[in-house]
Structures are given as structure tokens and as C-alpha cells.
């Protein structure tokens, strides 16, 4: 009895999942993917957001426009839209409406609040190549940081392992869901995995001080190359096996079936990068190191989805544009180590001006709460340097471009009919200090309304100060 009720609930949830996730891409493996998403948006009623200034996330800005959300999708953007009967009307006159912000670089859940020895869960530093670990297995869904992020207009975030080793492990894309009891309930359905790699000072410092490789920049690069060489071999072994197996199965099946090679979780992840199923997110500050990384990618025939932090991306904007690699950046962090010494306030706009895919990222539980302000700084500094950049274009740095870097641009990231209704209504121009997110929708479901107490995580519930304050 005690076990049957959860089982019933679980099967209901799975059924609901199957009916609402028609767009999920089929997994390459025939066995179901482990740790599959069980995220399902609550049922939503249609919402019409009337008369706001709309930044659509594709670079456009529309004054006095309506945005219609139906069945969790954007159903219309334009003037004087007709809403279905029963639609909730939101008056957005004088306000701004944008796609939800997507943070391509967060450690929420893996380095949660409170920051204690017990919660420092973000980097398996025990060896330089921990491509076998998955960030989602460290995510604590009760991190109070998730609700703070939503209040800042975040609707999707990509959780990465830390950057202390060459291969940090797999990253995972989440919705910041309140009340999730597992990470599976937060996982973005159909989003690809990523692999976190790191250039530069962090890995060589961490292992060098242990008198272990890599201790130098050249040790870093040797580490990447050796690992991908092994992954190629591994790939080849499995390809051979599959060929033999299919010959065996389509033949007369006499004799023993071919034996499968041993599984290696580390090489599985690297092989996913070689095959393009896993998107590479590469922590790299310096221009010269990014150019070397591009050459490593060329040598082994894989793609880099985005360089992260990329403090010197402005020096190689032409390369990044030509190679079609995004740069996920802070607006103005600099000086906290030598590889961050050449940071300038125009990094983001210069990457954009070079024709590249510029992204504003946080890498911070504080920064993620106001990434719109970081974009505003980048926008104004770019303009001051003489570049012509519109507000609409600046918003692509916060939604469409990060969606592209983490492989969900077909699903969300702009207010385009058919995409997910991940929408924020801002009190004022969000590219200023004073605007706040008044309403946030994820898949058409209202998840935040300013002034209403956000559902506290289990960690916060019942704390004395809350009981006193209410």
C-alpha cells in the first residue's frame, strides 16, 4: 500500500510526460536515457499581455504590442491580437515584455546556498579528466538560489561543473522549478547535454600544486589531445562492435554473438562531443588559448559550442565569428587573476560587432538575479565606443544566443510563434538599474509575481525570521 501510491503517481507523471513532449528528439540509444526529465508544466490558461514594449529576443522591438500565450507556447506577437475566451488579460502599457533570460553558465544547485563544506558539490577535482561525472547528480533542488533567479527573470539555466580540471563533466539544462523534489523534475525536456572543459590557470594550478599533470599550459593541451585521441579509439571500437553485431543479427546467428567493449563513462561523454550530441562549453579567458582550443577542435573534428568567460574574446571577434563559436561573457569582471587582466567593458559589444554570437552569462548566484543589468552595461559601453546597437539586439545576448549555445534555440529564447511561452513582464525598460521582473512565465505558467512571496524552498520554510515577518 505504502509503495503503490507513489508508483501510481509516477506512472501518471510519465503518462503526462509522454503526451506533452511530442517535440522531444529521440535518443540515439535504444534503451531509455537514464535520469530522464520528468518536468511537466502545470496546465495553464491562455494569457494575453497587452500593450507593452516588446523586445522579441530576435533583435526586434515593437511598441504597443500584445503577446499571446496559449497552451504553453507563444501564440502571437503583434498589435491588437484577439484573445481566446477566458484568457487572462495583463495590462503591460508602460511596461516591457521579453523572452525569459537564459543563463548559459550557472552553478546553482551544485554550489548552493548555504555555502558549506557539505554543499561544495560542483567540481570532482580528484583527477584532471572527470568527463564521467554529471552536474545534475550534484544539483540540490532546494537551493534557495533558484527562486531568486526566477525573480530576476530567469526561465532556463545551464548548470555546469566547476573549472578546476581539464574536463569537468556534463552540464545540464534546467528550468528553475519551485518545489521540485528531484533534479529530473527540473530538467529541460529534450535539451542536449554539454561537456565542461577548462583552459588556463585553474587546472594547471590545481594539479601543478599536487605535483601532477597538468602543471602548465602545455600540460593542459596535451591532456585535451590525449583524451580525445582515446575517445576516438573508443568510438572506433564501438563502431566495430555495432557493425559485427548487426552482421551477426542479420546473418544466421551461428556461433557466439560479438562481445561488447567495456563501457567507459568518461569516454562516452567525450565520444558524445566527437559525435556532436554533446555540446562543448569551454572555460577559456585568453585570446591565444581560445585560438589553440579551436585548433584542438579542428584536429579531432569536433565543434566548440561556446567559450565561457572569454575575457579576451574582443581580441579575436573575427575568429569567433568565422568559426561560429559563441562567447559567454561577464559585462565587466576583470583583474581577479592574470588571465582576467585584459578585461574591458566593451567585450560583449565588440564580439557582437565582429559578427559573433555574444552571450551575457552570470557564473554567479548574485549576478544571475540581474543579468539584464549586465546586458545594459554592455549595451551602453558599446554605444559609447561608437557602435550602433539597439535594445532589441542587446536582448539577443540574454535569450536567443544562450539558447543557441546550449542547443535549445528551436524550443525557446525568443517570442516567436510556436516557441515556449517563457516570458517576462518588466516594470520598466529592463536595460536599466530600476526595472524589476513583475511577472515571469515558464511554458505559459505564471511562476513569479512581484510582491507575492515566492514559494520558499524546504530549506527556508519555517525559519524563525519568516514566521516572525508574516
Amino acid at each position, binding site marked *: 500500500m505504502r509503495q503503490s501510491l507513489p508508483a501510481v503517481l509516477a506512472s501518471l507523471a510519465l503518462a503526462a510526460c509522454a503526451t506533452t513532449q511530442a517535440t522531444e528528439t529521440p535518443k540515439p540509444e535504444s534503451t531509455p536515457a537514464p535520469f530522464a526529465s520528468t518536468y511537466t508544466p502545470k496546465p495553464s490558461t491562455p494569457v494575453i499581455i497587452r500593450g507593452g514594449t516588446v523586445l522579441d529576443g530576435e533583435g526586434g522591438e515593437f511598441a504597443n504590442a500584445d503577446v499571446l500565450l496559449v497552451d504553453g507556447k507563444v501564440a502571437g506577437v503583434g498589435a491588437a491580437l484577439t484573445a481566446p475566451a477566458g484568457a487572462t488579460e495583463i495590462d503591460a502599457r508602460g511596461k516591457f515584455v521579453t523572452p525569459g533570460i537564459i543563463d548559459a553558465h550557472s552553478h546553482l544547485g551544485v554550489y548552493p546556498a548555504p555555502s558549506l563544506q557539505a554543499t561544495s558539490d560542483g567540481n570532482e577535482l580528484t583527477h584532471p579528466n572527470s568527463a564521467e561525472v554529471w552536474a545534475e547528480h550534484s544539483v540540490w533542488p532546494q537551493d534557495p538560489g533558484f527562486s531568486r533567479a526566477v525573480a530576476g527573470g530567469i526561465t532556463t539555466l545551464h548548470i555546469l561543473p566547476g573549472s578546476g580540471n581539464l574536463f569537468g563533466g556534463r552540464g545540464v539544462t534546467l528550468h528553475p522549478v519551485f518545489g521540485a523534489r528531484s533534479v529530473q523534475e527540473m530538467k529541460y525536456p529534450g535539451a542536449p547535454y554539454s561537456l565542461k572543459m577548462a583552459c588556463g590557470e585553474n587546472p594547471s594550478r590545481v594539479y601543478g600544486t599536487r605535483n601532477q599533470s597538468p602543471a602548465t599550459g602545455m600540460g593542459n593541451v596535451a591532456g585535451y589531445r590525449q583524451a580525445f585521441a582515446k575517445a576516438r579509439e573508443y568510438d572506433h571500437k564501438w563502431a566495430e562492435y555495432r557493425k559485427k553485431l548487426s552482421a551477426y543479427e542479420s546473418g544466421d546467428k551461428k556461433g557466439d554473438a560479438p562481445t561488447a567493449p567495456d563501457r567507459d563513462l568518461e569516454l562516452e561523454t567525450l565520444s558524445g562531443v566527437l559525435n556532436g550530441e554533446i555540446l562543448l562549453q569551454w572555460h577559456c579567458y585568453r585570446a591565444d588559448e581560445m585560438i589553440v582550443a579551436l585548433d584542438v577542435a579542428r584536429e579531432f573534428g569536433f565543434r566548440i559550442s561556446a567559450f565561457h568567460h572569454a575575457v579576451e574574446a574582443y581580441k579575436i571577434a573575427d575568429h569567433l565569428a568565422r568559426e561560429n563559436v559563441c562567447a559567454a561573457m561577464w559585462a565587466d569582471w576583470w583583474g581577479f*587573476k592574470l588571465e582576467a587582466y585584459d578585461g*574591458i567593458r566593451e567585450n560583449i559589444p565588440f564580439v557582437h560587432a565582429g559578427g559573433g554570437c555574444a552571450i551575457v552569462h552570470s557564473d554567479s548566484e548574485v549576478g544571475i538575479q540581474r543579468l539584464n543589468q549586465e546586458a545594459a552595461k554592455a549595451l551602453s*559601453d558599446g554605444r559609447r565606443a561608437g557602435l550602433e546597437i539597439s535594445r532589441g539586439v542587446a536582448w539577443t545576448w540574454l535569450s536567443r544566443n544562450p539558447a543557441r549555445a546550449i542547443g535549445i534555440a528551436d524550443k525557446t529564447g525568443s517570442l516567436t510563434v510556436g516557441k515556449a511561452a517563457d516570458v517576462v513582464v518588466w516594470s520598466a525598460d529592463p536595460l536599466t538599474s*530600476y526595472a524589476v521582473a513583475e511577472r515571469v512565465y515558464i511554458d505559459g505558467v505564471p511562476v513569479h509575481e512581484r510582491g507575492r512571496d515566492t514559494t520558499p524552498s524546504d530549506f527556508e520554510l519555517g525559519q524563525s525570521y519568516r514566521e516572525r515577518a508574516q
Partner: protein
Amino acid sequence: MILRNALFAAVAALAFASPAAAQSILIKGGRVITNTGAPLERGDVLISNGRVTAVGANLTAPAGATVIDASGKWVTPGVFAAMSEVGLSEISGSGAPNDASVTGTMVSAAADAGRAFDPMVTAVPVTRIEGVTRAAIAPSASGTLFAGRGALVSLDGRPDSVFRQRAFQVVELGEIGADRAGGSRAALWPVLEAALRDAREYPTRYRSGQGGAVLSEIDAQALQPFALGQGLFLVHIERAADIRELIRFARANPSLKFAIHGGAEAWLVAGDLAAAKIPVILDPLVNLPDRMERLAARLDNAALLHRAGVKFAIAPGPGSVDAHQARLVLQLAGNAVANGLSWDAAFAAITRTPAEIFGVGADLGTLAAGRTADVVVWDGDPLDVQSAPTAVYIAGRAMPLVSRQTRLRDRYMPPAK
């Protein structure tokens, strides 16, 4: 290459040829924030001999004065970074020297940030071209409860930048202090009391051979003026219960001067803080229970303290203070406004109030005749992240709006389309 070097030399010569402070400058027609009353919507500010000599409408320029048209712009006092490590390291990590951080047990209360300050550090111009003209800088020694003596500095890059040495003593009375006192707050307060006794009884007990109960001689000597009420204790403390304990301690030791840095839970004891007249330097972005002593942190802490009548300044919180981003204090203040604080109170909290907390409010933080002429002209509302200075004056000297970062920007400027 030769040409470039020649160019650099010329630029360097310009940068070091400091404009004469004796020069008069009239900043005309801006929206003037005086911090002493309502803004002047079209006001003028006259600067002579490094001081503000007049603030008002339609001032007449003295003969030979430089006249700056500030119409459509904002004119304000220079920003005072109420807590920073600017000038204490060129690069913080990577094994580079970092004079903010004092390790080991040889020195703690005696650590002296003002004597480590270097006005030539790259972060100094990076910070001042964003309108920050003064800073309180502090070392972070880790040997005892005492993190060392902080100084007040100008960011004009001149050799005499430190204008008040040993202005305050940083004390750890929260989780970090408890850790250093033996892992418990139960030990922390007795250790503090013993340290103050050691300092007051310096040099007698040291010369007699008795020695200090908890402090080395060098620390006792450095702590003595503060223990005698002649200097400010800047207390790192976050939790409401700890703040209540501090208030009790302050009542029992009325000669001592205290200000709080941190105060994430100060809103819970706002009335008591106002009554005790203990000011707070707070970080308006702290809203996560990231430490057990900050469980009740919330975004409207500043607004709640203001309503209760607590004097407060805005700066990064303990643990977030750094050597490179003091300029972000404007964004911190803007976010306090987004969370319920009035603009005037927020701007005062990064100009006038820090100057008052550190005892230099009669000279800095306001625009009025007779005050030191730290004046910034902005292309918009300074608390909005999109705004930036178009002119910065420190003690009447025009600062070139140039830094290593603008040099890099110019070198890599995208080609005009």
C-alpha cells in the same frame, strides 16, 4: 613600433602633467545633486584652488576659468567607496602579491593598509573614471579577531593619496571571528574583552614580562588608540543575535566607537540599531542564505534600515570586497532603489554617509562652498547602469578619462562600418 613608443611617451607626459589645482572651473547648467538639499535642476558649480567655492544658479565665471557645459547632464559629489581593497593589489589571484591579505600570526591588529596602498595600481584609474574619487581601504589579516587598520584614500593617483592613515580597525565578530576565537561565539566576546584590556594596558604588562592575555605586543600597541575610544571599530557582523550582542557591548563600553560592515540581518534589529546610533555599511545585493549567519538576508534591507532611522552606507559585503570592482558600488545603490529605497538616500549612501561614518563628512560627500572639490559630471542618472562620467575632478583636478582598459578598448576597436 618606434612611432607607437613615441606616442605612448607623449600620452604619458600628458597624464603626469597634473593640471594646476589653482585653476578655476565653472560647471554650468547641470542637474546638481548637492546632498544637502533638493537638487538644482539647472545649477552651476564653481571650483577654485581645489575647493568648491560656490553652488547655485547663473554663477559668473571668474576671469580665466574653464567653463564646462553640463546641460542635460548630472553633477554630483564624487563617489566614496565605503569598503574596498583598491590599490592593494595589481592582480588578486595567480600568485601575484596581494597586500590586502595578511596571513600568518605575526601581525593582525597592526596590519596597516594605508602603508601598502599604491596609487599607481591599474585599478585606481579604472575605478576613478567611473566616478569613484575616494575609498576606505582595509587589510584582511587572519591571525586574530582583528583584521587590521584601514585608511582613507583619494583615487587621484598622486603620491600623497592616503589622506587619513589608520582611520579604522576591522574586527571579526561574526562566524569568522568565532572560528578564530576557538570555533565558538561563546569564546569570541571574552577574547575581545581580553584583547581590549591587553591594548589598554600596553606597554605596562608587556614591559613587566606579564605579556598579553591574547594579543602580541605589536598588536596591542596598534590596537591601543581604538581601545581608548580614539578610533572607529568596523565590525564584521551579520546575524541579528550577534548585532544585539554588539549593541549590549557598545552600551557597556560607551567610550568605544562602532560601525557595522555586513549587517545582512540588521533589518531585524533596525530599531535597536537606530537607538544605539551604530551605522551600518551594507550590501543591497545580499539576499541569499549563503552563510548560516545570513539566513534572513533580504533585498530591501537598506529600505527597512532607512525607514527605521539607521545611518547606513552601501558597499560590497564582507567576503565580496575586492581590489578591482569598487566602481560597482553605483550599481549596488541603484539596486537598493529598485528595492524600495529613495534615490536620495541611496546616492547619499555612496557619497555623504561613508564620509560621515569615517569622520570626513565636513569636507567630502556634499557639494557646498568650502568643501573639497570632488565633482563628477555624468551623462545621465549616475545610479543607472547605462550612465557614465563625462568629467571627473578630484580636489579640483580634472582626471583624464583614460585607463589601461580604455587603451585596450582603443587598440581593439572594431573597424567602423
